[in-house]
């Protein structure tokens, strides 16, 4: 009996050929889109680094802006300002953010928890300039700008990030651990403090680090709340301090081409900080997951 070659053919027919082409095309487009994202990041980092490299020096980190025409000068005032503003914002946002997450994950009735999560997501989506104006109206009018007021605005930006990230890692803590602690006669709060929080510490640190990275680059909330031009190097949060994003702006507007290079260099410092903290956060989270899975 002759084999029906056409019926059992394993070669491509015109129709399957077309399907295969469409498949290839879709795959190629998706791959190109993904590569484009990587390329954009690489281009930004490389171009910023290239233009700013010439300005990077010891003096860049230790001096403040020089008087026009004298050359030299650095960004120490902006670096210190950003450290103070972001550090204080973190100190404000972390405890409140963790408490919100604990409420949502451990204490709230399911419906209220859902609502709180929604509110946090909406807060996260608020344009940062709105938060800047809000804090301006709340704290700045009448008494002037100060670094801590900028911190307050940044803390509002960080709060939903920290609360949501923490709440998600708290939800990962197996309920069997809570039951084990409660079955010993521990109260809910002791259970949270002694078992749930230590178990999720890695994830909480990760969420905080990501929020810090985000806050460090925020510009709009600081526009009305702290200085955009202060030149003094001080750690006093009651003073209006300069921050990295505004120094980048100020330097790029300067008539001196050397300042333009400094703006690029400061941008490079900021990008490096964000990249390093984001990667550290990833690493911490991976380690934390591994620990939980035993």
């Amino acid at each position, binding site marked *: 009996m002759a084999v029906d070659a056409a019926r059992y053919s394993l070669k491509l027919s015109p129709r399957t050929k077309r399907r295969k082409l469409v498949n290839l095309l879709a795959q190629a487009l998706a791959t190109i889109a993904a590569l484009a994202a990587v390329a954009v990041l690489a281009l930004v980092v490389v171009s910023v680094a290239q233009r700013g490299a010439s300005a990077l020096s010891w003096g860049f980190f230790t001096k403040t802006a020089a008087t026009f025409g004298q050359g030299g000068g650095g960004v120490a005032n902006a670096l210190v300002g950003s450290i103070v503003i972001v550090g204080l914002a973190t100190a404000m946002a972390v405890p409140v953010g963790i408490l919100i997450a604990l409420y949502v994950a451990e204490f709230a009735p399911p419906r209220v928890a859902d609502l709180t999560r929604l509110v946090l997501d909406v807060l996260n989506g608020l344009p940062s300039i709105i938060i800047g104006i809000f804090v301006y109206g709340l704290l700045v009018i009448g008494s002037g700008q100060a670094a801590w007021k900028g911190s307050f605005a940044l803390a509002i930006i960080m709060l939903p990030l920290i609360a949501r990230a923490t709440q998600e890692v708290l939800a990962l803590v197996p309920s*069997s651990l809570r*039951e084990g602690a409660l079955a*010993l*006669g*521990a109260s809910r709060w002791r259970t949270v403090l002694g*078992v749930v929080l230590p178990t999720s510490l890695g994830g909480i640190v990760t969420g905080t680090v990501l929020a810090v990275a985000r806050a460090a680059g925020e510009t709009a909330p600081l526009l009305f709340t702290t200085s955009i031009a202060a030149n003094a190097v001080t750690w006093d949060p009651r003073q209006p301090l300069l921050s990295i994003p505004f120094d980048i702006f100020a330097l790029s507007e300067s008539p001196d081409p050397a300042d333009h290079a400094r703006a690029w260099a400061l941008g490079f410092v900021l990008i490096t900080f964000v990249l390093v903290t984001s990667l550290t956060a990833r690493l911490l989270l991976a380690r934390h997951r591994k620990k*939980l899975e035993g």
Partner: protein
Amino acid sequence: MTIETDTINEVAPIEIAQPREAPRSAADREVVFEARDLTISYGNAPAVADVNLSLYRNLVAAIIGPSGCGKSTFLRSLNRMNDLIPGARVDGEVFYHGQNIYGDGVDPVEVRRRIGMVFQKPNPFPKSIYDNIAWGLRVLGMKDQLDDRVERALTQAALWDEVKDRLKKGAFGLSGGQQQRLCIARAIAVEPDVVLLDEPASALDPIATSKIEDLIHELKNDYTFVIVTHNMQQAARVADMTAFFTLERTESGGHGVLVEYDETPKIFTQPADKRTEGYVTGRFG
């Protein structure tokens, strides 16, 4: 037919625990728990209904029965662990040394402090072996002679020799059976009155299982144990008293009921109820 105690292993299909002392009738024993018309529901559907049952001091009670018959639900009602499940409701009463644990003014945290629990899957804390035991002690304010207490609990749980050189190491490095014994040590370290065991060996291999069973034998003079088990041989080996629960089908689904509760040998050799007989002889249905 009567079974002579020294030939029981050859005669009975299931090996039955031999009391070390002359069996005293349960009636002379102090009652630790008394459930009266206890019904536990999730939402509006009862999971287990109308349980009347007394548990006695220093006797191991086993709860056996098919899946879904409410064994674990009943067990968890004895230390108010069901409170943690949203929608769980308890009707009826559970008297613990005469006090209704669902009565007014009873604090579930106090209840659990006296009535400890070991779960189906070992659930050590992500802490060191030492801190797994010490944490509960610290929380309950039993901080004097912490080291001694930790050592005693681990010794009682037959784990001390295996872990004494690695107390500061993480508990996740232990085998499943060791982790479960650690959980038992954690539960008894805080000196509870009763220890509830919810299928404590179901996730363990036979050797680890037999260690857990030996442990229950060793410790039954100090604590009152209630053990839920899927494994009838296990109930026969460790329990003085056995309760058989089954699933009663109703129009709206079904719920667990207590069929029979008696001394273990009686349940396994001369059960009063046909359903018990069907279950223990493997002709379930």
